[in-house]
């Protein structure tokens, strides 16, 4: 009965109700769109940058994070990596050996980072073979290497020339080798372009005399949303009690904290804007509910005088506000959901210089939108919270309503 009453009360002021609901709906649509776009681009950024540098999760020796030393290695055996392979969220696993060495050619030399990789696996993950500008991509059994373009220019090396790599290997052994350049790779990031040498993993293991070992196992997972769970599973599988090598399981946030912090900052900015938007709309909602309460003071007085329990009156007002909010949310979702779904499947394409830069980096030049249930739930919860906040004052007024004064006047009470 209260429900019928509440609903009918709403439509006594048709335009006001609709306007308030629409304001809510608009706020909801805008927030939903913005958050979806934000979260979509974060997911995209994380996956893309992970591809080229750190991967989503890495398994490393415990000391490797601090020391970056060739001494702190993990076994490269199938037996060691089997627990990770068995997890179904794990899409691919790449073994990598990385260390520093001096590269020399002619009379020039430079400190470089040598990356020993399995070429076919790496290519599948990051399509690095697309970046080869001269020569060819390497194969697992090659004894030739790939060099960054900036580095090749500095050392005046072309495809087919020889490069000297000299440095410290595993357990103090000298790492020294002469290698032919099979191809030149162009990385859009100058730090990589001027520093990297890509080598087949077995060749790098011979150079550094490591035997069957790697500095890191890079793991790519299927779904970003399941990352935390997979991380926990891996930590359990490689816990110190089970193994004599102590393994450090690190996720991309740990490996590249700058990216994680950038994302956190951007997200905070977005959420702040969203609260601002809801704040403005919230005042509209507050105005409506307050008006609905104060203008019916006399009416409430009559209702209470004729026997309506105060609690039920409070309940009535709550119901009325709930209906307005519900109306707003429904309209908002009805408008917003198709919008988000459409852009999820047909993302906005970027053009011009931004697009070119993204393509160079190997990223698709689009603005992706995330489609996820909690985005919607989030918005609904915010509206609910807003509504409860707006109800506080009006409900308090009704609670303190003095019957006699209300019956007498109305507008000028208290």
């Amino acid at each position: 009965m209260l429900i019928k009453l509440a609903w009918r009360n709403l439509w006594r002021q048709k335009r006001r109700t609709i306007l308030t609901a629409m304001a809510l709906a608009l706020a909801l649509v805008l927030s939903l769109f913005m958050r979806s776009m934000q979260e979509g681009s974060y997911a995209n950024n994380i996956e893309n940058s992970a591809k080229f540098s750190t991967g989503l999760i890495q398994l490393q020796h415990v000391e490797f994070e601090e020391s970056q030393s060739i001494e702190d290695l993990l076994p490269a055996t199938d037996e060691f990596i089997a627990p990770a392979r068995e997890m179904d969220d794990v899409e691919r696993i790449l073994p990598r050996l990385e260390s520093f060495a001096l590269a020399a050619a002619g009379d020039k030399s430079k400190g470089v980072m040598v990356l020993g990789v399995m070429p076919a696996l790496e290519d599948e993950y990051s399509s690095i073979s697309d970046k080869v500008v001269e020569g060819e991509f390497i194969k697992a059994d090659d004894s030739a290497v790939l060099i960054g373009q900036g580095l090749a220019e500095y050392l005046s090396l072309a495809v087919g020339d020889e490069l000297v790599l000299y440095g410290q290997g595993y357990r103090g052994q000298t790492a020294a080798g002469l290698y032919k350049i099979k191809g030149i790779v162009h990385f859009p990031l100058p730090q990589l372009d001027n520093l990297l040498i890509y080598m087949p993993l077995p060749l790098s293991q011979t150079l550094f005399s490591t035997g069957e070992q790697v500095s890191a196992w890079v793991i790519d997972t299927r779904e970003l949303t399941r990352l935390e769970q997979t991380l926990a599973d891996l930590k359990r599988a490689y816990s110190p009690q089970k193994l004599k090598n102590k393994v450090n399981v690190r996720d991309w946030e740990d490996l590249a904290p700058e990216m994680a912090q950038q994302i956190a900052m951007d997200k905070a900015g977005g959420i702040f804007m969203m609260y601002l938007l809801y704040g403005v709309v919230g005042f509209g909602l507050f105005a409506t509910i307050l008006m609905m309460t104060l203008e019916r003071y006399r009416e409430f007085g009559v209702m209470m005088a004729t026997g309506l329990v105060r609690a039920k009156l409070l309940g009535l007002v709550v119901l009325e506000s709930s209906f307005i909010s519900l109306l707003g949310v429904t309209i908002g979702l009805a408008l917003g959901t198709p919008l988000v779904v459409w852009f999820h499947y047909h993302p906005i394409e970027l053009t011009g210089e931004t697009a070119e830069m993204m393509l160079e980096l190997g990223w698709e030049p689009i603005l992706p939108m995330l489609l996820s249930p909690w985005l919607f739930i989030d918005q609904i919860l915010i509206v609910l919270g807003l509504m409860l906040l707006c109800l506080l004052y009006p409900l308090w007024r009704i609670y303190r309503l003095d019957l006699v004064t209300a019956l007498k006047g109305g507008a000028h009470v208290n």
Partner: protein
Amino acid sequence: MRLWVMIKSLLSGMLLTVFVSGYVDAETASDIVDRSDEQMRGDSSYSVATMKIIRPDWTRTMSMKSWTKGQELSLVLVTAPAKDKGSASLKRQKEMWSWIPSIERVIKIAPSMLSQSWMGSDFTNDDLINQSSIVVDYEHKLVKEELFDNDNTWVIDAIAKPDAPVVWSKVRLWISKQTYLQRKVEFIDEFDELVNTMETYDVKELGGRNIATRMTMVPADKPDQRTELITHEAQFNFDIGDDFFSQQQMKALRD
């Protein structure tokens, strides 16, 4: 009267002789060090040795051959393991080079690199290639006498001459009185801290001389690791040309 003068002169003559001979026979610390170097090295030497690098978790073994001539020329060749075979280090007067066959390059060893570890062991480049500078680049002072491994030794402090291209500011040597071999050496850096300690054992006759066939080097900051150098064969004082100690020869030697 004449007899008395004769006896006096005889007595004073004897006394003088005793003093003078005592003075002449007493060796200076520098003499001891020089003689020790001569004993260990001779005019020319050839030795075959094995080096064992011992760490808490692992041990690595290398084999080498070395030639020296006088105090200015030396050549060390690595013969095992296969990865390092053919690597050589050459010293001529004050210059040093390293030959790395796998990259076909000769690397000049600057004095600043002398304190770096030789091929990952606890011996420095200086220890292996630049051995004789202990005689030439240091001032010597006898400190005391001590027993080491049942051997009476002189303890001599060698303090680096200013501007000498050396690694250690002070070296303390325990030189055996009997064999003139260095039994123990402490290496001290410019901050007056003990960095390495070398001890020698198993004095045997090889190639006609008494030499200490086992040398251990222990770093002061990592006492659970050490490197042992064991000499198997040695020959001394044979004829060898100066041109053996050259870069061409260094590159040509394989075994």
